Structure formats: structure tokens, C-alpha cells
């Protein structure tokens, strides 16, 4: 039992640093580049992804024994698209302000390869409970990554954090940071930083 708990915890923890998306596990770079020009955008996308990832992992690991391997991708894509569309409709019907703020992100989750990636790499080979832990870890790790990118880009691009001005009038905003080019710079910088820390720790 104790061993079982440790391995469950490991499934959760690996998404937070060891395999943190998108820096270590290079999946989901698309939304990480596209919607992280402010903290709130990054976190909204992260949380929406977490929700869809969790539901997709649960369903896919539950039906994993009945899916023929040749058509599994098709089956997974249909399930993920269903979850995303239902989320989108639900938000538009019940929480119009949130739906307006998230606008184009929700449909973007369908093409977020983290979800298909975790379905392929984890949920289709593991029971439901480890799949839940995997989804939570990966989802939270992804949200943290997007938060960090949003923080750096918003601070340098607008001089603010969460729309609150932090840097005074002397600061000339780096417009490039909120444009796509800035996303690549921050992404590259963070991948390098994460790799550097990992290598230093392992002493190589």
C-alpha cells in the first residue's frame, strides 16, 4: 500500500519538474507560445487545459481495453473534441463573462498535443487512478509554466503584472515581448534555464 502511494505520488510529481510541459516534455508549445502574453491569459489557458486533460485521461483510461489500436487516435480525437466543445458550450451558456474572456482559447485546446500525448503515453496503458494523478501533475505543471511565461512577457511587454502597473514611467515597454517573437525568446530562455538547473543537479 505504501509503495502504491509513492508511485501514485510520483505520477503526480513528475509533471511538476522532471517532465514539466512544455519545457521538459516539449508538448503543448503551441498554446505556450500563443496565449502567454499576459499572466491572466496564460493561467486561463492552463486551467482550461487541466480540466480537459483530466476528463480525457479518465475517459481514455476507462475505455482503454475496448479500443482497437489501429483506430485509437481517431477515437481519442473525437473524445477530446467532444469534451472541449461541451466545455465551450457550457461556459457560453452558464458563465458568459468567462466565456468571453477565454474566447478563442477553448477551441484551441483540441489541438493541444499534451492531451493527445498523455492519452498515448499514459492513459491508454494505465488504470484510472494513476491517470488522474498524471493529468493533475501535468496540468498543474503546464499551468505553472504558462504562468511563468505570462509573468515575464507581461512584465517586460506592458510593465505590469495582472494589469497592475509595476514598472514606473521610466520603463519603456518592450513591445516585442507581447508579439510572437517575444514568445520564442522567453520559451528558449526558459528551456535553457530548466536544462541548466537539471544538469547542474545531476552533475553532468
Amino acid at each position, binding site marked *: 500500500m505504501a509503495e502504491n502511494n509513492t508511485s501514485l505520488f510520483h505520477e503526480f510529481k513528475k509533471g511538476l519538474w522532471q517532465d514539466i510541459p512544455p519545457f521538459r516534455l516539449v508538448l503543448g508549445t503551441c498554446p505556450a507560445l500563443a496565449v502567454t502574453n499576459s499572466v491572466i491569459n496564460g493561467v486561463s489557458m492552463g486551467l482550461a487545459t487541466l480540466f480537459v486533460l483530466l476528463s480525457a485521461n479518465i475517459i481514455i483510461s476507462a475505455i482503454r481495453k475496448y479500443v*482497437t489500436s489501429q483506430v485509437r487516435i481517431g477515437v481519442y480525437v*473525437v*473524445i477530446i473534441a467532444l469534451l472541449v466543445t461541451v466545455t465551450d458550450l457550457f461556459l457560453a451558456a452558464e458563465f458568459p463573462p468567462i466565456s468571453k474572456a477565454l*474566447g478563442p482559447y477553448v477551441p484551441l485546446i483540441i489541438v493541444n498535443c499534451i492531451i493527445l500525448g498523455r492519452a498515448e503515453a499514459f492513459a491508454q496503458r494505465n488504470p484510472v487512478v494513476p491517470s488522474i494523478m498524471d493529468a493533475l501533475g501535468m496540468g498543474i505543471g503546464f499551468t505553472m509554466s504558462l504562468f511563468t511565461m505570462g509573468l515575464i512577457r507581461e512584465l517586460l511587454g506592458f510593465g505590469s503584472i495582472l494589469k497592475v502597473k509595476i514598472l514606473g514611467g521610466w520603463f519603456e515597454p518592450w513591445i516585442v515581448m*507581447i508579439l510572437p517573437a517575444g514568445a520564442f525568446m522567453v520559451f528558449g530562455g526558459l528551456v535553457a534555464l530548466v536544462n541548466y538547473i537539471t544538469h547542474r543537479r545531476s552533475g553532468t
Partner: protein
Amino acid sequence: MNNVTKMFLNLIIVGAFSGAVLAWVFHLADPLIQANREKELKESIFKVLPEAKDYRKAEKGLAGENIVVYLGLDEDKKPVGVAFKADGGGFQGNVGVMVGLDLEYQSLKGVEILDQLETPGLGDRIRETEFKEQFKGVEVRPRLEYIKYRKPEKPNQIQAITGATISSKAVVTNINKAVEKVLAAFPQGEISTIPAEAAAPEASPHETGGDR
């Protein structure tokens, strides 16, 4: 059961199940979504015509297009301005603007962004108050214009958002086009009378209290 049959069954079951769930959710959500849109439209009319307490809808066909305007009315049922929706392409999709215009068709009373799919953090800043506020009192004739990096100099100019010129331009262009259409469909001076005729005969001011 051979593999091919299994593959077919897999896809058929998943497809049918997803389709059914989606149809059911859509059936539940659609009326709510429509109601939300309706509510948002109403609220935006009162936002772009701040003096209005009530409004009347008027429609007119023009070159195969149905032009809809909302005539804003104050407490005494006097027209205070006209509101209409301006749609058109933006950077990534439709940009729908609710426009509030004075009765002389000369200057704007306010604008509100209803629909947009612009880039988050850049183009979608057209929804921010600072951008919308600057339209107040700006003249739409001969044309509304935008200017970059500087404060507007002429009475018909607004300042575009840095890094989001295309989205800012879309708002300006859509307003210009819509003003033109409304002007053609409801010539100046006619605007305050047409909707009144279209509505039921007006009661005298003393009796209005009993209405609705």
C-alpha cells in the same frame, strides 16, 4: 469478431455517442446562449447611448440587406440618439461593434465591442475602456480616421492601439461602413420619425404610465 469489424464498431460507437451527447448539450445550451446574446445586445445599447432609458427598434431593407437601428429614448420618450451594430472583418474574424450616434449623424456617443476573435493581449485590447472612451464625441463625417503613436489632432481621429493597428483599423472601418449604410437607409431627420410611425400609435404623455 475480426479486427476490421472491431475497428468499425469502435469508431461508430464513439462517433454516435459523441454526436448524441453534443446534440443534447447543444439543445440545452443554445436557448441560454441566445438569451445571453440578447441581454448583451440590450445592455450595449444603453451603454453607447448613456442618456437613453428605453429604445425602439426599426428595420429597413436596403440593397438586399436588412438595416436594423435602435432609436434611444429618454424619460420623456424623446429620441436621444441612434444605435446600430457594425460588423466586419478584423485580424482573425468578425469584429462586431455597437455604435451610438447622435441624431445629426455627426458625432459618436459611445462604442461597445460585442464580438471579437482578435489576438489575446494585442488586438483584444479594443475591448479596453481607454480605447472605447476615446470614441466619445469623435466626428464620423466626412470619415472616422485612426492615427498611430500620437494623440489625435483632428476631431474625426482616434489613436490606434500600438501593436494592434489592424484591429483598431477594423473598428474604425466597420463604423464608417455602418454609418454610411444607416445614413442611406434612414436619411437624417427621418430617423426620429420612422420608428414612431412603425410603432403603435403613441399615447398622450399622461397615459404612458399605464404602458407595459
